[in-house]
């Protein structure tokens, strides 16, 4: 049972059903990163999927964007408690990228330029739930928000949507990535408030 805070009334109640527990709305787009922002040139950029069979699927920038961008209209939720509703992205569906992947593993480690990693179950990336996003709000994605390309998995807390994404490696077990080793939850469902472990 919580104690009451003498003299605290709070803001007018936000009874927005789109807002997960413990989150507040922001019109801003705050930045959460562990270190400096990598500056990447799309001319040198590539994205790879590696599986346990030794298979490597690889795309350069032109090859990736030629797969076709989808419009994604979605809410995003950061573990630091801000949520942004109705954001507009464009990106390449992970379903397309995994079409030819040969794997029986159930988990992935996502790698970023700059060394950041995050872990997810593969099923959270499939069936129209995840994209490699290259545009936000009709513009190319800015570097501090993960540009030129970031993972977009909006049904999980936003640290899972790895910035500056470089590739995905299949893994047998759900080994923790960077933030997960530094105190954040292994899965990160905002509707169950899976912030820390």
């Amino acid at each position, binding site marked *: 049972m919580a104690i009451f*805070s003498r003299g605290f009334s709070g803001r007018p109640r936000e009874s927005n059903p789109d807002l997960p527990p413990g989150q507040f709305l922001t019109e801003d787009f705050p930045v959460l990163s562990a270190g400096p922002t990598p500056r990447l040139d799309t001319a040198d950029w590539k994205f790879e999927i590696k599986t346990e069979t030794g298979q490597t699927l690889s795309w350069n920038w032109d090859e990736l964007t030629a797969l076709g961008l989808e419009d994604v209209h979605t809410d995003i939720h950061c573990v630091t408690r801000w949520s942004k509703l109705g954001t507009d992205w464009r990106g390449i569906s992970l379903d397309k990228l995994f079409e030819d992947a040969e794997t029986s593993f159930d988990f992935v480690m996502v790698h970023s330029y700059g060394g950041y990693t995050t872990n997810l179950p593969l099923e959270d990336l499939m069936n129209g739930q995840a994209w490699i996003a290259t545009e936000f709000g009709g513009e190319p994605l800015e570097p501090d928000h993960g540009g030129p390309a970031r993972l977009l998995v909006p049904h999980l807390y936003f640290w899972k949507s790895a910035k500056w994404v470089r590739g995905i490696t299949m893994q047998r077990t759900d080994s923790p990535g960077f933030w997960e080793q530094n105190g954040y939850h292994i899965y990160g469902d905002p509707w169950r408030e899976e912030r820390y472990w």
Partner: protein
Amino acid sequence: MTFRDWLVGTVVSTTMQTPTAKSIVLDVPGWKGSAAGQHVDVRLTAEDGYQAVRAYSLASTGPGDRVELAVDLIEDGEVSPYLVGELREGDQLEFRGPLGRWFVWKPGDTQPVQLVAGGSGVVPLLAMARAHAASGSEAKFRLLYSVRTPAEVFYADELASLAGPNFEVTFVYTRQTPPGWPHPAGRVSREILGSATIPAAENPAVFVCGPTGFVESVADWLVELGHNALAVKTERFGGN
């Protein structure tokens, strides 16, 4: 008790650090201490059960029953106006933590440490300077502190007393300097950063904390100045 459980602290003292910022010392029986640089979630509950939670860096570090926060007022905020304007001695405050294991300095770390603060971003860095002093660590420490005016310096007296051969403090005033200050007011530049911080060649661990725009600029320049990006840890607040 784990860091996931909500704890109750009793306010034993508050101090206005600047015209808009207040430090708050809580008595928390059974507190297991924190590492320098960690933060807590603070939870407020209204009479109708409505709750608001925000994260604040800890100024305190190490063991003991005392927990110290320092909170800067955000004009249109929901939690900081209450903490800065209303909370007083004897009140109870709920929080949980300590949280975060990345933006942390430990006394066993022997490499040089460069701290770079923008405004209220100095709070977790002060915790590191306190831990450095309390442990007798011989690691070289340096702080570059960007602040608008002399009146807005957090923990000014304590920073002055902590400063010494092993802890050099440099201020950059962005709006107004003290009388007779040798430099005009202005923002941190790449040149200032290059001349007033531990050089990349000494392989320092670097901790940068402040508003997003400040941290973005500083972190970019540090990389340009030759620092290993993996040795530069950042904590940002606010949007863009």
